[in-house]
């Protein structure tokens, strides 16, 4: 505990000692110092510093050199770099000063715990100056008497130190004050130098680490002068139109130096300078006449100077001055050409003369007018017509022939040589051959092969071919000894030019040879628009229009057609550029195709819009090949079916709608005693032999009933029979006895046979009982029998004949009977009608029996039987029932007047013309 208090007291004492020592010796007095004090060190060198403690501190604070700690910017220097020289001196060594940071401090560790700074220094690190190199000087004249000299040099590497450069100069016998650069370290200007005495110049660089001097430069300043350029330049026109005289003032005394000059000049608007030969201006002067200039041309002049012997520097070019040469007469005649158009009169030409305005260097002044002389070479008189025009063209209407045209240009000074153009009656001379073009250096070169004859000159005529503008002719002349030239005009790229070359001879002219050319080609601006002309199953005919010349941008070398399906690969076909149609083949049927077309020039192609089309599902004739056989087959099948039906009609009838024989037409009627003779009909006898009757009903006929059949009633039937033999086509109206029969079934002999056949099948006939209607006494009663005797068609036919014959009285009679019946009865089944028959009155039945007998007797049966049967069947099939109803209605109306006359014959049966007739 006590020792601890001692430590604290000792430390406080030490601090008090240090502080009191510092204060007692002055404002600040430290316990030591560092040697060297703020040194400047070479970058990369080694450095050793010493910290020396004051003896007084040793006495008061018990501090020694072994307690010293070195720091660089608060960073402790490793102990390995320390060395205790004695009890008051400690050293630190740095092998490389580049890593040395400021400040470097010497510190003491009092009693091993409290660190106290003793002293600190700032170390400056840098490099000594390098020897300045590349020293050079120039004397720039700034006024007539002021010649400052500026010297520049390379100061060398950065030194990181404050380095002073001095430009030193001296005469051998006299020193001058140094030139100290301002703000820079690589140049200095000496305000005034004296010529003709050698001056020694050098540069001295100095900093804290050393001094360096450049190699001395010994020179006479007069040898490095850059004089001021001559001034007050003036240009005056001379007497000659090709001369301009320049005058100027020199700004350097001849006593200082003799000068030589450069004179340059150019035409206003031209960028290229021309120069007067230097040897012509190599001597001191203040004026010069420039020769060889163009008349009436504005020139720009400029001049510079330097020391006559060429030692030194050229001055800057002087300010530019312009001057214009005087006019001279035109040096040549204007180039002339013509175009000839047919006039309204075939004997005249419209000659359009055109000539080019002379270039300024040819006109040599302002062209006031042109004198055009046209002389006919054809006529003997050879009179010349003169025209004075201010324009560069003249249109004349001349008779056909050969002419010589002369054009002369006039300016203020004089006239040009004449330009002559021979216009022959025809271009009969040899033309040039092999006209060709070649783009070159942004211009279009035209070449040709000269004809064998001597050519005076050539005229190259060209125009821009465009859809939007006319072909405006431009032209140029070329001498006869050339076979190629560049077109002198504004030839645009991507435009088509039609170029024609005419050879002009002394006595005529050759026809023009033309060629089309492009200065530069490009891809077409658009592609062809393709569309289909015709689309088939596997092919499509594509058609397109040629691109216009404005769209081509070059020669169309080829077309390429690209086509593809929706999911297929694209196929390309190359097409000749002359074509406008192409047929795509091997396409897939019923497929959507997309087609586009590209037009190619030498520079590439461009595609037109897409076009889609769908190939057809069937090829040409395929549908016909399918449909026609199918139709034929169908018709054949129908026909066969029809034939089959006819062949099997009986069978069909039997199974589907068996014929129910009409009892009223039964042969049993023939048994009636009133008509015994009818049964003598031979055919019936054959057809129905007596032996075939297996069952015969007994018919009781009252004698009174015979009265109901008067002779008058029977007469019409006789007439009918007669007519039947001659007119078989008349409808009987009774054919409807069969269920298959149409009401309008035509009755013929064949029906009879058919009926005969059909009724050959076993049909149970009911017994016919003649009974009175509604309690009236029946005339005749038929009872259905079990007989299989066929229903005789002859009976039906007889009825038909009655209905269709001319015996209207008879027919009307029967119609009256059915007039009040519902027409729908015709559709009733056969058995219903049979019941109606039962209610028929006796008189009617008797009459009907007569009718059948007469019909039978009048109808021959034989070879026509089958044929008529078929016809009747066809009629059944084809005739519509509605038609029959219509006719029937009319018939009913027509018979209304007979009701009163024959009320007894009215029967509730279906009545229709040609239909089932009631009994």
């Amino acid at each position, binding site marked *: 505990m006590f020792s601890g208090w001692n430590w604290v007291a000792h430390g406080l004492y030490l601090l008090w000692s240090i502080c009191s020592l510092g204060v007692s010796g002055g404002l600040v007095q430290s316990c030591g110092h560092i040697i060297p004090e703020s040194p400047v060190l070479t970058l990369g060198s080694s450095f050793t510093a010493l910290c020396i403690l004051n003896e007084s501190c040793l006495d008061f604070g018990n501090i020694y050199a072994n307690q010293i700690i070195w720091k660089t910017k608060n960073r402790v220097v490793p102990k390995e770099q320390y060395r205790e020289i004695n009890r008051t001196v400690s050293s630190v060594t740095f092998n490389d000063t580049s890593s040395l940071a400021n400040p470097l401090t010497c510190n003491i560790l009092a009693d091993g715990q409290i660190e106290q700074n003793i002293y600190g220094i700032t170390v400056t690190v840098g490099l000594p100056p390098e020897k300045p190199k590349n020293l050079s000087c120039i004397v720039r004249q700034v006024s007539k008497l002021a010649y400052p000299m500026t010297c520049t040099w390379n100061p060398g590497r950065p030194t990181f130190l404050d380095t002073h450069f001095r430009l030193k100069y001296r005469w051998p*016998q006299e020193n001058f004050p140094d030139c100290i650069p301002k703000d820079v370290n690589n140049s200095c200007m000496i305000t*005034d130098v*004296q010529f*003709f*005495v050698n001056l020694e110049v050098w540069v001295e660089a100095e900093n804290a680490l050393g001094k360096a001097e450049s190699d001395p430069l010994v020179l006479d300043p*007069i040898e490095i002068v850059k004089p001021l350029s001559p001034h007050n330049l003036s240009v005056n026109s001379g007497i000659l139109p090709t001369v301009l005289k320049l005058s100027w003032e020199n700004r350097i*005394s001849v006593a200082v130096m*003799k000068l030589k000059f450069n004179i340059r000049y150019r035409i206003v608007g031209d960028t290229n300078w021309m120069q007067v030969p230097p040897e012509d201006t190599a001597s001191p002067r203040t004026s010069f006449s420039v020769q060889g200039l163009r008349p009436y041309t504005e020139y720009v002049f400029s001049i510079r100077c330097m020391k006559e012997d060429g030692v030194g520097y050229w001055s800057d070019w002087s300010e530019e001055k312009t001057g214009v040469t005087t006019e001279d007469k035109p040096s040549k005649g204007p180039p002339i050409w013509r175009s000839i158009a047919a006039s309204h009169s075939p004997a005249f030409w419209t000659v359009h003369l055109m000539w080019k305005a002379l270039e300024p260097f040819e006109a040599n002044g302002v062209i006031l007018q042109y004198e055009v002389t046209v002389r006919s070479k054809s006529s003997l008189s050879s009179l010349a017509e003169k025209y004075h025009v201010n324009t560069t063209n003249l249109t004349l209407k001349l008779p056909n022939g050969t002419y010589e045209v002369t054009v002369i240009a006039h300016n203020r000074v004089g006239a040009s040589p004449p330009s002559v153009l021979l216009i022959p009656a025809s271009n009969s001379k040899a033309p040039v051959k092999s006209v060709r073009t070649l783009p070159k250096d942004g211009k279009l070169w035209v070449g040709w092969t000269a004809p064998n004859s001597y050519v005076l000159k050539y005229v190259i005529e060209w125009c821009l071919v465009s859809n939007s503008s006319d072909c405006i002719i431009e032209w140029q002349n070329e001498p006869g000894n050339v076979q190629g030239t560049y077109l002198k005009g504004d030839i645009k790229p991507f435009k088509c030019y039609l170029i024609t070359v005419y050879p002009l001879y002394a006595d005529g002219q050759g026809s023009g040879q033309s060629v089309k050319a492009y200065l530069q080609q490009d891809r077409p601006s658009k592609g062809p628009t393709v569309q289909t002309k015709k689309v088939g199953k596997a092919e499509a005919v594509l058609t397109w229009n040629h691109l216009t010349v404005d769209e081509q941008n070059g020669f169309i070398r080829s077309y390429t057609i690209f086509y593809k399906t929706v999911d297929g690969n694209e196929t390309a076909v190359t097409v000749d550029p002359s074509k406008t149609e192409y047929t795509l083949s091997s396409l897939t049927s019923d497929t959507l195709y997309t087609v586009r077309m590209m037009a190619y020039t030498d520079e590439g192609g461009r595609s037109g819009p897409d076009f889609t089309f769908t190939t057809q599902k069937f090829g040409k004739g395929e549908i016909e090949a399918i449909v026609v056989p199918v139709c034929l087959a169908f018709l054949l099948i129908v026909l066969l079916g029809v034939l089959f039906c006819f062949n099997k009609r009986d069978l069909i009838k039997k199974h589907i709608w068996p014929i129910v024989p009409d009892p009223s037409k039964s042969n049993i009627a023939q048994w009636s005693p009133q008509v015994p003779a009818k049964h003598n009909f031979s055919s019936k006898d054959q057809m129905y032999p007596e032996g075939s009757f297996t069952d015969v009903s007994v018919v009781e006929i009252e004698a009174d009933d015979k009265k109901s059949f008067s002779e008058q009633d029977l007469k019409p039937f006789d007439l009918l029979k007669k007519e039947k033999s001659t007119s078989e086509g008349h409808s009987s109206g009774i054919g409807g006895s069969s269920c298959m029969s149409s009401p309008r079934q035509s009755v013929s002999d064949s029906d009879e046979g058919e009926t005969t056949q059909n009724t050959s099948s076993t049909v149970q006939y009911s017994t016919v009982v003649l009974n009175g209607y509604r309690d009236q006494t029946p005339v005749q009663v038929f009872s259905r029998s079990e007989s299989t005797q066929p229903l005789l068609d002859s009976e039906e036919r007889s009825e038909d004949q009655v209905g269709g014959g001319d015996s209207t009285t008879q027919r009307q009679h029967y119609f009256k009977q059915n007039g009040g019946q519902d027409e729908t009865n015709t559709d009733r089944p056969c058995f219903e009608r049979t019941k109606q028959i039962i209610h028929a009155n006796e008189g009617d039945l008797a009459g009907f029996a007569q009718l059948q007998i007469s019909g039978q007797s009048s109808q021959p049966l034989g070879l026509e039987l089958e044929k008529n049967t078929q016809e009747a069947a066809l009629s059944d099939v084809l005739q519509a029932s509605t038609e029959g109803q219509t006719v029937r209605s009319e018939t009913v109306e027509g018979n209304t007047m007979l009701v009163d006359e024959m009320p007894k014959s009215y029967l509730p049966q279906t009545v229709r013309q040609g239909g089932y007739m009631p009994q």
Partner: protein
Amino acid sequence: MAAADNTSAALRRRDLCSRGIRLAGKMRSDVIDLLDTYVERQGLDASASVASVEGVPAAAVERWDEQTGTQRLLENLAAYRAFRALLAQMLEEQQEQLGEADAALGRALAAVLLQVSAFTYHLEELLRLESRGPPSEEGAEPPPAAHLSLFERKLRGLGVLRELAQWAVRSTRDLRQLAKPSPGSSSAASLAESP
């Protein structure tokens, strides 16, 4: 070795003569310009007659063409040493009189002084090449001007400049004469002509 030295000495002499001639020409030109400025600035009459300047040998000399080269050089050297002292005195007086107000005149005087000094160097070098060496500058001091009035100083200054202009002409001729190949010299090089 001796021949080489002779050749080198001849080239050196030739170069010194050539540039001396051109320097004399420029000096004359500048002095003439300075004379105009001086007359104007000092308010003098350009036609004022001035007596010969004390201490300056007269430029005009009889039997000039009979003089030897060394004699010419010595006379020139004496004259230009005197001009150098007089011009330095004039420059000092001008600065005292006008201060920095007329810097252009001071610069022109300083420039002429430099040229005189440079020409003096040329002459000394030529004399060295003559194996004679330049004489000492004792006695070249200009007479004190303290006793002169301001106007007299101005007139003296005018006289100095006029005499210098004349000496420039004579020096040119002297150097041309010197530049001509001497009978005993192997160097036959023709010197550059005067400007």
